[in-house]
């Protein structure tokens, strides 16, 4: 800044300090020195100063846009905290351990939903991880060159299909398929584990896990591909030179090196699965219960919000649902941070989602 305004700044500060008890008033009066400071700056324009202020202004504007990202996350947190405080004061930590869900009696516990979210997401991982890793390994290490692009394009296209369409497809194609062709053999051969027992109506944890698995395959496989791509070529060459077969090369030279990043990719997939709403709501059966069998219907945190939020009338009910949202937010944030760090260490500082 030039000399002219600098003479004024201490003036302004002194006035501000002198009038400390009524500081807000001083700010509001139009005759404060702060205003004249601005006009002095405008009175002495030279074109260099003009450029300088434009640069500063541009910087400030872009900074403002960037800060909205921080502000939005802050707003999400504060709004959720504020709107869920009623349920928090009513139930405290007990909310997450209780399994009653009775809107009429005003008794709320989130345990069945937490259980459903965790079980369905883990089931999705169990199904998706082998498939996603196979695709990633096959595309980067094994597949003939001309097939490489179509297969990766196909998996990426899976990512572009909206959740509601997966849900629709799962409702009318996957659920009957599971009920008729998959559940009976599971019950027959694995029924003794207790995981596949009882009647199967179609809408079940299994259906939700399966459709979620299809949805997270692209995320896991594309990030795994990125991680595999950073494994140095000479690792592969060294393994092959020692007489390793291709699979041994992949297992020892590539997968072992990329371990942290692959785990990161899987956790990122988990994060996506935890928050998945629409497709799951359409096929999970929406029954708040804790059942051992995967063939039984369940309920997830995201689906209970989706189903009941618009019908929730009294404020405790709304607040309980928002508290579930808050828990979902915090869990996915933690999971995502963990995953980002793992992928980041694996790609050594390159942006985790870089595709350049």
């Amino acid at each position, binding site marked *: 800044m030039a000399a002219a305004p600098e003479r004024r700044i201490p003036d302004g500060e002194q006035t501000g300090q002198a009038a400390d008890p009524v500081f807000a008033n001083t700010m509001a009066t139009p005759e404060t020195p702060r205003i004249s400071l601005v006009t002095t700056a405008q009175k002495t324009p030279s074109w260099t100063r003009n450029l300088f202020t434009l640069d500063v202004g541009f910087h400030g504007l*872009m900074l403002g846009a960037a800060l909205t*990202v921080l502000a939005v996350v802050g707003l999400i947190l504060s709004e959720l905290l504020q709107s869920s405080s009623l349920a928090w004061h009513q139930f405290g930590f007990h909310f997450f351990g209780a399994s009653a869900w009775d809107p009429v009696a005003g008794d709320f516990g989130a345990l069945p939903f937490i259980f459903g979210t965790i079980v369905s997401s883990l089931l999705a991982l169990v199904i998706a991880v082998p498939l996603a890793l196979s695709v990633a390994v096959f595309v980067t290490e094994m597949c003939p060159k001309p097939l490489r692009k179509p297969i990766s394009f196909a998996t990426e296209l899976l990512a572009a*299909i909206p959740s509601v369409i997966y849900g629709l497809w799962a409702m009318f194609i996957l659920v009957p398929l599971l009920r008729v062709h998959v559940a009976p053999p599971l019950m027959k051969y694995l029924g003794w584990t207790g995981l596949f027992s009882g009647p199967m109506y179609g809408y079940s944890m299994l259906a939700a896990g399966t459709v979620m698995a299809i949805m997270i395959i692209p995320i896991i496989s594309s990030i795994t591909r990125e991680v595999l791509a950073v494994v140095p070529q000479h690792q592969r060459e060294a393994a092959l030179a020692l007489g390793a*077969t291709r699979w041994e090369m992949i297992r020892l030279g590539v997968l072992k090196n990329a371990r942290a990043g692959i785990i990161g990719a899987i956790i990122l997939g988990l994060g996506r699965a935890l*928050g998945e709403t*629409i497709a799951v709501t359409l096929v999970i059966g929406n029954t708040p219960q804790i059942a051992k069998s995967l063939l039984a219907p369940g309920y997830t945190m995201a689906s209970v919000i989706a189903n009941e939020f618009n019908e929730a009338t009294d404020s405790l009910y709304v607040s309980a649902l928002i508290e579930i949202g808050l828990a979902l937010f915090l869990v*996915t944030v933690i999971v995502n941070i963990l995953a980002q760090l793992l992928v980041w260490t694996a790609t050594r500082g390159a942006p985790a989602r870089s*595709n350049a």
Partner: protein
Amino acid sequence: MPSRFLQFRRRFADYLATFVAAGLSIFVVGVLIAIFAYLVIKGAGSVNWAFLTHTPKPVGEIGGGMANAIVGSAMILGMASLIGIPFGIGAGIYLAEYGRNRLGSLIRFTADVLNGVPSIVIGLVAFSLVVRRQGHFSAFAGAVALAIMMVPTVARTTEEMLLLVPQTVREAAFGLGIPQWRTTISITLATARAGILTGIMLAFARIAGETAPLMFTALGNQFWSFSANQPIAALPLQIYTYALSPYEDWIRQAWAGALVLVILIVSTIAVVRFLFGRSVLREAS
């Protein structure tokens, strides 16, 4: 001979691994083909002129369409883009041009975190930020929710694309005495515009299919609405409602709507691929 056995075992493991990986990859591609095939089979018969130009009929009457939902989706997406894109590009510029510091890393990290926040939570927040304050559901509230989802994606791709512009280009501009803001707008941004446009279109494709953030904001509507301050129909919402309905005709229309939505999204992505030929699709995930 143990060594021969070992060799056989190693070779067998190699074949087996290749076979399994190839088989599972084919299975994944097969699932994709199955989904698209069912969409076309179930939806193609119902996508007709009436579907594209009529509003929903009252319950029990056969026919009607999703014209209001298609227009509603377009309105919400347009408003969301108007809000989200400037902020996203601005944040991207900051990260690429000024953000090589602590604050930059923090914002970058926060953007990645925001990208992973479940869309239903964004819907809840848009509800308490806009709907509760305005006192009614509105298209604008839906647009705010979708704009929030757009910002991190646009910001991160803009940053990546700007960083691809060689430093020498910026230095050449500075050398000509062009101030930094002008360099950024007219030279750096212009050089990276194809990539940035790609990022925007992929973010657009991503939010185009979102249902969860609209449930408590745009709410849905069975009639025409062109106001930003009224509840409005949206294609994904309409598909969701119809999929849950017990009426044969509504379920048929849900498939038709799904086909229209997928065609919209896939063609957006195809245009991006065709124009820029880059493998940036995964950003849409």
